[in-house]
C-alpha cells in the first residue's frame, strides 16, 4: 500500500540553527499536508501544498512540494525554542468520500536554548 516516509526521526539543534525534515511518498500525491504536534499536545494543521514544485512560506517556515509530487520538505530558519515538537507530513489516499490521510512517522525536533 501507499507509504509516506519521513526523515530524520529525530533532530536536535541549537537555538538559531536551521532545521529540515523530508517526506517521501511511494506514489504521486494529489496534495501534501504538514502538521505540528507540541509535546503532550495534538497535531495541528500547518499547511497544504497542491501544485507541483510549489513553495510556501510561513514566517521562518518554508514548505516545498517536489516536481513529481512525491516528496516534500519543511525547512525552519533560525530555530527557536517554540519550534519544539514533532512535525508530520501526510498524504491522502483514494478520492471521494473514502479520503484517508496517511501520516509519516514524524520528525521530533528539540531545540537547545
Amino acid at each position, binding site marked *: 500500500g501507499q507509504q509516506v516516509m519521513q526523515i530524520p526521526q529525530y533532530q536536535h539543534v541549537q537555538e538559531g540553527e536551521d532545521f529540515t525534515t523530508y517526506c517521501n511518498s511511494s506514489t504521486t500525491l494529489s496534495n501534501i499536508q504538514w502538521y505540528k504536534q507540541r509535546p503532550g499536545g*495534538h*497535531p495541528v494543521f500547518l499547511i*497544504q501544498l497542491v501544485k507541483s514544485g510549489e513553495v510556501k512560506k510561513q514566517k521562518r517556515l518554508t514548505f516545498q512540494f517536489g516536481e513529481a509530487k512525491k516528496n516534500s520538505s519543511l525547512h525552519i530558519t533560525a530555530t527557536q525554542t517554540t519550534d519544539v515538537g514533532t512535525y508530520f507530513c501526510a498524504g491522502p489516499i483514494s478520492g471521494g468520500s473514502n479520503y484517508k*490521510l*496517511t501520516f509519516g512517522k514524524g520528525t521530533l525536533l528539540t531545540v537547545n536554548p
Partner: protein
Amino acid sequence: DTAVSQTPKYLVTQMGNDKSIKCEQNLGHDTMYWYKQDSKKFLKIMFSYNNKELIINETVPNRFSPKSPDKAHLNLHINSLELGDSAVYFCASRGPTGELFFGEGSRLTVL
C-alpha cells in the same frame, strides 16, 4: 469554544474492562476519524465516518466499535481491553480542503 472535543482526556483501567471515548465537533464537517498514536508517536488511522456512515475501517480488531449518532459525534467503544490498547486516541474532523482538525486526545492506559 473547542472545535473538536474529546472526553475523557485520561483513562486508566484494568485489562478486560470495557471503555468508551466520546468525540464532538462543532465545525459542521461531514467526515470524522479516529486515529491511534502509539508510544513512538506513529499516527495510525482506525475508522472514518461520513455523515454517520462508516467509510473506512482499517482492519481494527472488532473489540473496537465506533458509533456515530449524528455527523457531529463519533464515539469509540472498546471491549475487553488489552495492554496493547494503551495509546493516545485522537478524534479528528475533515475540513473542506482535506485538512484535519484534531481533538486534544484521550490517553488510555491499560494495566
